[in-house]
């Protein structure tokens, strides 16, 4: 393992994610039009543009600070259901990381596991409820597996991203039980969950970050 998951890598990851959201915001909004209120793309885009604006000032900060600023920025700019949930994800992911300049793959996996646990605690969604949890939980489990195998490579992360995308697609037939889509009852089936989709992009962004910058760590 080189020097692990550093602040620089996390910032590139967040920047790449912001880039994907900018590209995909209309798609996310279209998904949210079918079973929600047509704002998920705009919400996420607004939030990560704000994170992007803060990134330069974080270059020399420890990971606890990076995750916390990201979390607080999302909480105060995204709004809706996704704001507190993604905010909580990064807040919990950063808990206990004060002073840490880098994480090992296992530590990184543990950090994201804390994140998803925070999302579940806040939103009370279970697997299969057709929410972002349906992607976050299995994708992070896959990431943990790769980390436990010793290293995170562009190819192992590409597999995690592919799995995340599959999980997002797998929300299509589900009946929504949480969030606004649940109001639709049976009519929520047949549509991909917007939050699950934006969650999958997190792992696409991560894989792209690694394949661009860090062949192996």
């Amino acid at each position, binding site marked *: 393992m080189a020097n692990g998951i550093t602040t620089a890598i996390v910032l590139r990851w967040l920047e790449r994610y912001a880039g994907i959201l900018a590209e995909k915001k209309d798609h996310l909004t279209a998904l949210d039009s079918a079973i*929600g*209120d047509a704002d998920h793309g*705009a919400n996420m885009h607004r939030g990560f543009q704000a994170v992007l604006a803060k990134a330069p000032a974080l270059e020399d900060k420890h990971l606890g600070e990076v995750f916390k600023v990201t979390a607080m920025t999302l909480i105060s*700019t995204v709004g809706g259901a996704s704001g507190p949930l993604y905010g909580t994800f990064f807040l919990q992911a950063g808990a206990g990381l004060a002073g840490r300049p880098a994480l090992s793959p296992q530590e990184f996996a543990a950090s994201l596991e804390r994140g998803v646990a925070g999302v579940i605690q806040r939103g009370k969604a279970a697997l299969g409820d057709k929410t972002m949890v349906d992607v976050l939980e299995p994708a992070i489990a896959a990431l943990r597996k790769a980390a436990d195998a010793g290293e995170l490579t562009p190819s192992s992360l590409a597999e995690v991203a592919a799995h995340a995308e599959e999980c997002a697609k797998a929300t299509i037939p589900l009946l929504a039980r949480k969030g606004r889509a649940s109001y639709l009852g049976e*009519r929520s089936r047949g549509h991909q969950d917007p939050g699950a989709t934006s969650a999958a992009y997190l792992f696409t962004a991560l894989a792209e970050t690694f394949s661009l910058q860090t062949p192996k760590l």
Partner: protein
Amino acid sequence: MKKLINAPENVVEESMAGLAAAYRQVLTAHFGPNFLRRVDAPVNGKVSVISGGGSGHEPLHGGFVGRGMLDAACPGAVFTSPTPDQMLAATEAVHGGRGVLHIVKNYTGDVMNFEMAAELARAQGIEVEAVVINDDVAVKDSLYTAGRRGVGTTVLAEKICGAAAEEGQSLEQLAALCRKVNAAGRSMGMALTSCTVPHAGKPTFELATDEMEMGIGIHGEPGRERMKLRRADEVTDLLLQPVLDDLALGSGSEVLLFVNGMGGTPLLELFIIYRRAQELLQERGISVARNLVGPYITSLEMAGASITLLRLDDELKHFWDAPVWTPALRWGI
């Protein structure tokens, strides 16, 4: 998309600025974080009443800020719950020393964002009580949903709790009163057309010219069921019946009948709905002691209507009748 706007990202701030300019005697706008507050807040010795939610429901909530109603309102982006920093800043700005009541519509986002704000405010020593309004009978409150949505009853709760706050009730009393209103109010809505979220640029859903959506909320979303368009009287019955059933109103009870327009429905039509609704209530021996008719909790330019019934008693009538001076509701002053 055909809208009288400058740019989707400026809609909320520019509209707030216009509202504040038009009602300088009543309210003030604060930007970054965004909220509207009573011009004379904090009113010393009074519990403050705050609400908020996504924009696009105007006059809710900003149009209900003023004497006898809200002390502050926090508008989010269109159809997007506001963020905790807004509610925190508004809470701090209007807190008059006796605590703050948060009136929250039951949507996952609203509930979570208000919860976070309340935690932050409490950490600063401000007493906060939050009451969640969930009056929409179109959605069953079950393990399989996020619970009933907060819709029309919110307007009535804001008026009634605002009046009670003005009369000096404690935070505890106000929270109990708000829960009472919520327990006594039920709503159901329908749409003839969808609406267009400015950022999305096209209608959230499409409906054929002979179709309507039954059981919609207030976010331009599709409803519980798509049906063939019917006559106004039949639509009224379809809206009112589940409300009556859920409230279990018997002959002899008194109600406030609130016929609400979703934004694009002319008053001409709302009064046709009102006519049938009060006729049907009369047939059931239910007396319409108070009413409200108009677009008060809307979904942008959506065509459609909702009906809210609030079971009344002397206390609720008293607070409903109390003077109010806001952009959208005014009497007695």
